[in-house]
Every structure is written in C-alpha cells, then in structure tokens.
C-alpha cells in the first residue's frame, strides 16, 4: 500500500505511483487524490492571480483618482491665477481711465503738463491692454490645443531672423532690467516652420529667462546640426529643482509661487505643443541657483 502525504504545497503521489499500484481501486483513489491536490493548487494559484489583478486594478484606480485630484487642483489653481491675472490689468485700466476722464474736463486741459500726463497714462493703458490681450491669446491657444484644432502654417524661414526679431521686441525690457544678453548665431538656420509660432516659443523662453534669470546674463545661440536647427536659451538665475523639472512642461505648471511672478503657467506647455507639432522637441537642463538651459530642436 502506498502511503500518501498531501498538504502544504507537497504531494508524494505521482503518475508512476498511480500506475504501479496493484490494487485498481487504490490506484483510482490515489489518482483522485493527486487530481484533487492539483485542482486545489490550480484554484489557489488562480485565486492568487485574481487577487494580484484586483490589487493592480485598485492601484490603478487610486492612481487615476490621484491624477483626477491633481487635475482638479491644477484647474482650481489655474482659475485662481487667471482671475488674478485678468483682474490686475483691469483694475489698473479702470484707474487710468478715471484719471483720463478728469483732465478731459474743460478746465483741466489748460493745466500745465496736462497733455504729457495724459500721454503717459495712455501708454500705461496700452501696456495693460497688451497684457490682457496676451493672456487672452494664451487662453485661446490652450483652447485650440485641447480641442485639437491647433494648426501650423509652415513656410521657409530663417530661425536666426526669428530670434533677432524676438530680441528686438525685448530690447526695451532688456535695457530697463540691465541684463546682458549675448547672441551667438554665426550662420543662417533656414527651415520650414510656422514663423509666428516659433516666435511664440522663443518669446516664451526669453521672457522666462528675464523673469527667472535674477538679473544675471542670458545667452542665446542658434546653430544648425546634421538634420536639425537648435536654439538654446540659457540663464543663470534661480533654476528649477530636479523634482520639478518634469512638471514644467505640464499645463498650469508653476515652479515659482504665483505671487512672485505673473502669467498663467501655460507658456512652456504651449511652447512644447508647438515644438512637438513642428516635429521637434524642447528640453531643459537646470540646477537651483545656477540657472536653466532650454534647448529647442527643430527638424530641417
């Protein structure tokens, strides 16, 4: 007679013991025990697999919930920032318009220096209108990108010219902030891109470099490599902590607290969308208090 031992992941019955058993009934019993043991082990394994799958589903669910929570937080932050950003120029505009109405009264026109004051106030009005327009354009871009109706109009353009035009527009701001900006673009960088959109990307990078550059020098370079044109904007400012670097290209990203710097936190996200839609890529290399280097690579 075969002495069978079954339990705790161990079964001494094998096919050979079943076949070698002389008593047909005992052989049948041994096989039954063996099959029962195997079926229970299989069911146990199936249950363990199902539990593991359930754990995965639970983890995925928790992750999705966390993503959703973060998305809701980001949306709420965005709404708060957008409201603040829109309210600030509007308040300034309202105040300026009040000032402008007063000198328009007949007795005020003759006051000494009245026209000069009015011109200065109008220039301030223009700046605030421009700021509001930029915010609205940024929000429209987000709307187009998320709706999938964002389109590029590529045409032949020299990347070097785009960079120069952007820097020309920033000339006054650069002078006012006493930041030294050097440009290294010795050769033409012709390609077929949407000039207005690439302008938008570079504008964002230069604007960020001025905002977060802590007044230190900024270097801009344009070069052509084997199959791509490369623009590099480097500042020596506050930099970005390593754990934040992956987030800065996300929508509503803001590494620095909103109270310190204006904007909706959408610029780099829009820039990345434009660069990717152009077949290129944008990347950052940064260290806190040492500065950031943004590199845009566009296919030729």
């Amino acid at each position: 007679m075969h002495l069978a031992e079954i339990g705790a992941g161990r079964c001494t019955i094998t096919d050979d013991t079943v076949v070698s058993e002389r008593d047909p009934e005992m052989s049948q019993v041994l096989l039954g025990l063996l099959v029962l043991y195997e079926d229970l082990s299989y069911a146990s394994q199936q249950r363990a697999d199902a539990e593991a799958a359930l754990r995965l589903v639970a983890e995925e669910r928790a992750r999705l919930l966390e993503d959703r929570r973060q998305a809701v937080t980001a949306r709420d932050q965005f709404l708060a920032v957008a409201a603040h950003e829109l309210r600030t120029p509007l308040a300034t505009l309202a105040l300026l318009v009040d000032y402008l109405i007063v000198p328009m009264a007949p007795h005020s026109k003759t006051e000494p220096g009245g026209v000069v004051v009015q011109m200065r106030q109008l220039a301030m009005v223009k700046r605030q209108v421009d700021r509001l327009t930029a915010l609205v354009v940024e929000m429209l871009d987000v709307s187009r990108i998320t709706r999938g109706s964002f389109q590029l109009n590529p045409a032949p353009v020299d990347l070097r010219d785009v960079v120069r035009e952007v820097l020309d527009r920033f000339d006054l701001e650069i002078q006012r902030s006493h930041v030294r900006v050097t440009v290294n673009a010795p050769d033409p960088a012709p390609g077929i891109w949407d000039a207005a959109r690439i302008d938008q990307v570079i504008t964002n990078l230069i604007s960020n470099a001025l905002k977060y550059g802590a007044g230190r020098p900024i270097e801009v370079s344009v070069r052509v490599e084997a199959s791509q044109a490369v623009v590099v904007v480097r500042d020596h400012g506050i930099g970005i902590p390593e754990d934040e670097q992956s987030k800065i290209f996300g929508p509503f990203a803001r590494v620095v607290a909103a109270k310190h710097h204006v904007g909706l936190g959408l610029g780099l996200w829009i820039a990345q969308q434009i660069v990717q839609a152009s077949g290129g890529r944008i990347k950052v290399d940064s260290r806190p208090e040492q500065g950031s280097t943004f590199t845009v690579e566009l296919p030729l």
Partner: protein
Amino acid sequence: MELEQRPYGPGSTREESEAIADRASVVDDRILLIDELPVQSPFSVKIMFDRFRALAHDWDRFAYVVDLTEAKRPNPETRAALKAQILDISPRVTHLAVAVGDNLLMRAMARLFAYGMGLTNVTIHATRAEAIEETRRAMGR
C-alpha cells in the same frame, strides 16, 4: 503534418491549428471521433471542439469516441477547459466511448473524469475499434 509532443498555444501556425482541428472527425452517421493529442492544452482543446461542433452541427443527438491511447494526463488548466467543453455538448450526447489502450493512467483518469462530471453514458475500451463498435451499438445499429 506531424504534430510534436508539446502543448500547442495561440502562437501556433495555421498548419498546426489545422492539424489539431483535423483530430476531430466523423466516423459514421452521428458518430464522431476525437483522436486526442499526446500533450493537450486549453488551446488545442478549443480548436478540436470547435471543429467537433461544426461537424455535429446538423445533429440533435450523436455519440462520440475519444481515443486517449497516446494521451498524457492533462494539467489542471486543460482539465478545466475539457470539462467546460464536455459539459457544453453533453445534452446532445447519446454515448461516449473512451479508448485507452494499455494506458492505465488514462483509464483511471477517464473513469475519474466521468465520475466527477456525473456522466453515466460512458464506457471505457482497450481499442478504438471496440469503442466505435460500442457507439454504433448505443446508436441502435
């Protein structure tokens, strides 16, 4: 084609799948044969029973022979697949005759399977010819 002594899975070629399906055939009117593979798998069980069902499509009742002469004992996963297929066709089965040759292990396995599934219209035979003969008798011929 010659099938190898290994379990066949979803990665099998069309020729292999066809050769597996061909192991199910018609012996006589309303009598079918399953010539079981040496090494069965849930995949091969499904392929063979798909062909089996196609062959028996027009018959409300039929008998069949399963030849286990060359077969090895199926693993728990394959047994589960086999049970599901056998239970699915069992309402239309008049008789099941199993040929086991001198395969003692499969003889015991067939008995255990029939008993475990509550099948009463099952006989076990030494040869395929005997099994076919028994199905003919069961069909009243």
